[in-house]
């Protein structure tokens, strides 16, 4: 990767630039600064993570024992639906966008994002969208309860909440599309001289490809949910066989969005891990270019595998075969990535600070999720696994110790850069070990539950599933509690602590480490030279 030479990045100011942040609330409401906006995204994401987490606690509490004890079944279904929607659209996506906002301009030597006012709007739509979504919980008939996948005809039974759900999704879509456009334009147009595409840090690469996926699929989701709305309120029959439509068509539209969406959540995570592992192995990333090509192939393949979510719905045999093999093909570029991460560590002078610990856990545990994905990709096997807890275990492995761990690794890795203070390493490690142990206690038994036939999205279950559910719930509570420690570590670090050096770590690569910690309000007013 690139050697970095920075000239005078702080001493030049354009007349039009604000020299520092505005005061008070105005700073946050009107800001065009990528760091302020990044910070808001990250805080918002943390709040949503806790909100969605609280719902998960309700779910695990109800499932602690067989029988119905705490909540009404209808409310339970609202919890599973809202938990997923909030975690996907409110926690994971905004967190990666927040990291992109903070880091991409710095990593490519730019003063800010390309379209800073639109950047502000992308963020400020989100709190309103989620207020709208959450408000459905107190409406007559409650919130949506048909699952985050919103399949008709079930979802058509939602009461007054339906249009609120759909319009909230529209708002999230508008926000993501604008955010994605901004990221693509920033990367394509704002790179410092000499920062050629193949010198870009991998986090920038993965986000470039993610942004492309976002612009391509969010509008499709918008179209699909609009059809749900008109079917319900304007008499169209897109998803109604009586009028010539087909409820299965919704599933096709949804998963044409939905499968790229899971890569929208994981590709930036790949990027973060590809930044961290080289730093703590003190070696350049192994196979940089193959990482780029692997990311691009994954993105391409993600468009042609969607119906692996629909094997049991009824599909021509040729379709089953096509989607089975195309899905399995994704394991190849994914394998390339895992291989490269491990080869980067091979004979490295490794140390195990908190970001590295999270990254190592990511490589190991994400791969478990990939393997269960491969099992699910086998169409005849999926007839057995589909809609059981095995699927729940699969996607939680790729999303929690996958995407969420990578985000946390990124936060620990860059927090000293952002705040100028080191976080408390001991507490960070405690947080890591608690999270890693509990996440496995929480999700590993769900594989067994699924293989034994326990269906997903149910508030009660047969007594044969009792033991594993209790273990899983204990893991859940433990994982939930551990995250309070995370909040404490982050707040403590923001408030003060040992001063961080500009480099923070031993010999990290990348432009972010050439700026002061914390960096100046405007990162690179004059472009650094990259040789």
């Amino acid at each position: 990767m690139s050697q970095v030479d920075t000239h005078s990045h702080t001493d030049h100011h354009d007349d039009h630039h604000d020299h520092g942040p505005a005061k008070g609330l105005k700073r946050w409401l009107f800001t065009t600064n990528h760091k302020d906006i990044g910070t808001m995204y990250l805080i918002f994401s943390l709040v949503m993570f806790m909100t969605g987490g609280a719902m998960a606690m309700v779910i695990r509490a109800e499932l602690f024992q067989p029988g119905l004890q705490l909540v009404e079944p209808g409310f339970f279904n609202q919890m599973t639906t809202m938990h997923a929607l909030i975690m996907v659209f409110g926690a994971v996506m905004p967190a990666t966008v927040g990291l992109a906002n903070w880091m991409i301009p710095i990593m490519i030597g730019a003063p800010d994002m390309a379209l800073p006012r639109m950047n502000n709007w992308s963020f400020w739509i989100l709190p309103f969208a989620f207020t709208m979504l959450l408000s459905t919980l107190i409406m007559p008939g409650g919130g949506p309860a048909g699952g985050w996948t919103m399949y008709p005809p079930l979802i058509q039974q939602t009461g007054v909440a339906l249009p609120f759900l759909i319009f909230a999704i529209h708002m999230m879509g508008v926000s993501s599309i604008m955010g994605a456009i901004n990221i693509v334009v920033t990367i394509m147009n704002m790179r410092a001289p000499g920062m050629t595409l193949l010198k870009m840090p991998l986090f920038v690469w993965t986000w470039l490809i993610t942004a492309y996926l976002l612009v391509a699929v969010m509008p499709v989701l918008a179209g699909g949910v609009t059809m749900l709305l008109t079917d319900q309120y304007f008499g169209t029959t897109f998803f109604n066989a009586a009028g010539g439509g087909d409820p299965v068509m919704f599933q096709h539209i949804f998963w044409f969005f939905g499968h790229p969406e899971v890569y929208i959540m994981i590709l930036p995570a790949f990027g973060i891990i590809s930044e961290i592992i080289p730093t703590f192995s003190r070696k350049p990333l192994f196979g940089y270019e193959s990482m780029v090509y692997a990311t691009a192939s994954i993105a391409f393949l993600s468009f042609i595998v969607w119906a692996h979510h629909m094997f049991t719905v009824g599909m021509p045999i040729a379709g089953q075969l096509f989607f089975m093999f195309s899905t399995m093909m994704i394991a190849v570029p994914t394998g390339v990535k895992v291989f490269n991460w491990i080869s980067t560590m091979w004979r490295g002078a490794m140390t195990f600070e908190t970001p590295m610990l999270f990254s190592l856990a990511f490589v190991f545990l994400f791969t478990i999720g990939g393997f269960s994905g491969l099992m699910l990709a086998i169409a005849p096997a999926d007839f057995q696994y589909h809609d059981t807890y095995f699927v729940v275990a699969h996607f939680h492995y790729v999303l929690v110790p996958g995407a969420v761990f990578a985000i946390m690794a990124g936060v620990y890795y860059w927090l000293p850069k952002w705040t100028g203070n080191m976080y408390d390493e001991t507490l960070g490690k405690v947080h890591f070990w608690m999270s890693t142990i509990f996440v496995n206690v929480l999700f590993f038994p769900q594989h067994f539950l699924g293989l034994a036939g326990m269906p997903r999205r149910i508030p009660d279950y047969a007594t044969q599933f009792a033991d594993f559910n209790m273990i899983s719930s204990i893991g859940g509570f433990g994982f939930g509690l551990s995250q309070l420690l995370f909040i404490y570590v982050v707040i403590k670090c923001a408030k003060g602590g040992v001063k961080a050096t500009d480099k923070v770590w031993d010999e990290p690569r990348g432009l972010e480490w050439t700026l002061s910690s914390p960096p100046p309000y405007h990162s690179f007013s004059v472009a650094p030279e990259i040789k």
Partner: protein
Amino acid sequence: MLAKQGTAYYVPHGSHWPIVGSVGLFSLMIGASSWLNEAAFGKYLFLVGVAILVTMMAGWFGNVIAESESGAYNLQVDKSFRMGMSWFIFSEVMFFAAFFGALFYVRNLSVPWLGGAGNNFFTNLLNWETFQAAWPTNGPANVGGDYETMSPWGLPAINTLILLTSGATITVAHHAIKEGNRRLLNIFLFLTFALGFLFVGLQGYEYYHAYNDLNLTMASGVYGSTFFMITGFHGMHVTVGAIMLTVIWFRTMKGHFLPEHHFGFEAVAWYWHFVDVVWLLLFIFVYWL
């Protein structure tokens, strides 16, 4: 305007318009949802939201136009705008792709299946025995009652000519702006949005005709659904495009834009060509074939 060229990127100062836009969007969405749920205040809240959004757009674009005319933007900013607009249009393409996808799906898969194609013999026999798959259809249950389809060779053909002509007039206007021929520019830009609004008017008339004479409505099964959703979203885009052209026309009348630098004009022209292309596909697959 390229008064300033330099290595420094123009980072605009803060703006209150985005948050105003969020409040507007919020009230529009809450209003629309409540309206659908038959709450009395819904309609008003919706309209308040529309008003706020219109104000926001006027204000925000007003700021950008003023900054552009004062020469604050350099070539790199111009390029950001270009890329941003292209990617926005790509997202619009994908939005229409969802509806065209639905159209192809019902025409090639779900309707034939209901008629017993593939391994769906029993679906047809047990559920919809008398149903013969054909397109157009309002489904085996004759949803919405008997209807007539829209013939492509009346108004739709005229509308095709209108849009294609407007594509030509905007190209003339573009050449005029590049040659600095402002009179020609003003005339042909005017013609373009006049044709745009004429299209929208005729489309409105066509809807009136469909509802009143043909009994063809949104609820006419899946033919009505796809017909009205695709033409409807297209019509909305033409309306927005024509409004944008009008704004650009007012700007050219005021002497905005230079022969070598007129991104605002070009962005709208791209958008206009985009709605043009969508119409051609629509004319072929929705009206004709």
